[in-house]
């Protein structure tokens, strides 16, 4: 052992690291590897056939497309909500602040039923949209609405602390230097917020891709049109096609992982100034 060993105030590095690895294996890695092993029972040809069937492909498009769009919508409006909550004082602010967390706390099935009934052709909002030929419930649009609903808190809660920490002096400095409001926002404030917006976007996206409960009620679940991938996995399971289910699941896992990794890289780039 080296003499120049570092002494920490609290001992137990070996123990805690061991525990961390063991725990991660138990909770995350073993179940995920089971997924891969189960998939591996299929031949390559079967696997490709299972994950590229037209119905499956359509479900990828719906799921990832809607999730991406929902995350983008949340990134814009979540920032807006966070901005209002941080910058202004108004009556009922605490209530609004609490409301933001509701999609976190609500059981997804409750959210699904609520959304489905509100946006159904005879529901409160559906009734208003119906005459304009806009159908939300039981269409891909409904999936988008559900995904936006469940993803909103992620953006708000990641951007909020950054906005709170941002010094008012930055804006004042920009104004003293002659920048107008748009320039101040685009060149001074937005770049500071960007990493947190990207984090919120990634979290919102990941949640939307994996969402099941709140979507299936409003989606209508028409094959090739409004069927999401998680539902397809359930369907396969109900048909005792375990290998087929895990095959699709592993594709989703891979896709999610790549997406998160890409967003992480993007985040690192946008934080390059942190030194």
């Amino acid at each position, binding site marked *: 052992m080296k003499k120049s060993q570092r002494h920490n105030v609290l001992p137990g590095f070996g123990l805690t690291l061991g525990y961390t690895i063991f725990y991660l294996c138990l909770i995350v890695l073993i179940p995920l590897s089971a997924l891969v092993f189960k998939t591996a029972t299929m031949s390559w040809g079967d696997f490709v056939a299972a994950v590229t069937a037209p119905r499956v492909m359509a479900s990828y498009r719906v799921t990832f497309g809607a999730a991406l769009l929902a995350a983008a919508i949340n990134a814009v409006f979540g920032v807006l909500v966070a901005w209002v909550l941080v910058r202004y004082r108004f009556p009922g602010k605490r209530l609004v602040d609490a409301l933001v967390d509701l999609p976190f706390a609500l059981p997804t099935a409750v959210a699904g039923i609520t959304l489905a009934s509100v946006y159904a052709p005879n529901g409160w909002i559906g009734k208003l949209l119906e005459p304009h030929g806009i159908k939300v419930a039981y269409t891909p649009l409904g999936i988008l609405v559900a995904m936006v609903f469940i993803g909103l808190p992620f953006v708000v809660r990641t951007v909020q602390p950054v906005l709170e920490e941002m*010094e008012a*002096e*930055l804006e*004042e*400095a*920009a*104004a*003293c*230097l*002659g*920048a*107008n409001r748009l*320039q101040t926002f685009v*060149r*001074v404030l937005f*770049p*500071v917020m960007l990493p947190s917006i990207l984090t919120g976007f990634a979290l919102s996206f990941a949640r939307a891709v994996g969402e099941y409960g709140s979507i299936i009620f409003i989606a209508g679940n028409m094959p090739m049109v409004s069927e999401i991938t998680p539902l397809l996995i359930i369907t396969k399971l109900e048909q005792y096609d375990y290998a087929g289910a895990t095959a699709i699941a592993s594709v989703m896992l891979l896709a999610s992982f790549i997406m998160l990794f890409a967003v992480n890289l993007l985040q690192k780039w946008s934080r*390059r*100034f*942190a*030194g």
Partner: protein
Amino acid sequence: MSIEVRNITKSFGGFTALKDVSVNIPTGELIALLGPSGCGKTSLLRIIAGLETPDQGSIHFHGADTTGRDVRERKVGFVFQHYALFKHMTVFDNIAFGLQVRPRKTRPSKNIIADKVHELIRLVQLEGMADRYPSQLSGGQRQRVALARALAVEPQVLLLDEPFGALDARVRQELRRWLRRLHDELHITSVFVTHDQEEALEVADRVVIMNAGQVEQAGTPEDVYDHPATPFVYNFLGNVNLFHGRVDQGQAKMGAMELSTPELAAVPDRPAVGYVRPHDLELERTYSDSSSVEAAVRHIHAVGPIVRIELERGDTFETMEAELTKDAYQKLALLVGERIFVRPRKYRVFVDDYQI
């Protein structure tokens, strides 16, 4: 460009930050706004900059009323205590910001901006750091970047809010001398806020001393230090010994000490306070006149060129502090516990405003 502050009043909620403040700042001068925290000096600076609007009164730049004008149009350079640098921009981009955000018509070309920025980087002695981010700089370097950024837009007025407040003592001292030299080169009308009297007295052409939202005194550093106009200024600038007593028709009596105060000849019997700087106390072995008072030597701090001596008055048992040069101290050959006579060479007596 001269700045005139006319009868500014400003309150925040129930708190009055500034009460009818007027200050004149001639072109090209470096002025310090000095005062304890909460005295309104930063509010005044922010009102001059246009970051805050006054409740009453007006600000005139070069004789023209600018009170209602937006910050963007005032052409002021503002340096913040905590730098307020744009963390996601390099040193170069920070300094160039003010030029890059100009409308296309008045924006200089890229080459001109680059030349100008590099010239400023040289001016603030940060050569070779153009591509660094603020997080890679020390506090002193960051503040110099902030200064260069403010200077880039060629402001007519430079305002600095406790510019060295967040720096450690040595960097502070270095930077304030550097600021003084820079000002001598550029001759831009500058106002800086500080609570550090040493900083104000060392750097500024003139010092405006503020307290509780009002100007106590304005003048050159020598002027305010040697001739404080109010008890507050006496207390705030440097150390001072206080003698409590009464004044009656030009004669102040503080314990056994009697001082003549011809300037207070018209004052009938009133409580009064005498102010004497430690270095204005004469220590003598023999009793000379009625302005002398007997005291005992309690402590002697003989480190450095100035010897500080703590004394206890024989009549009131109050503590006083005297400062002697090393020579004078050695000539006197003082010992702790000795009795000695103390006579103020220079003093000022103020009638105590406190009335029963």
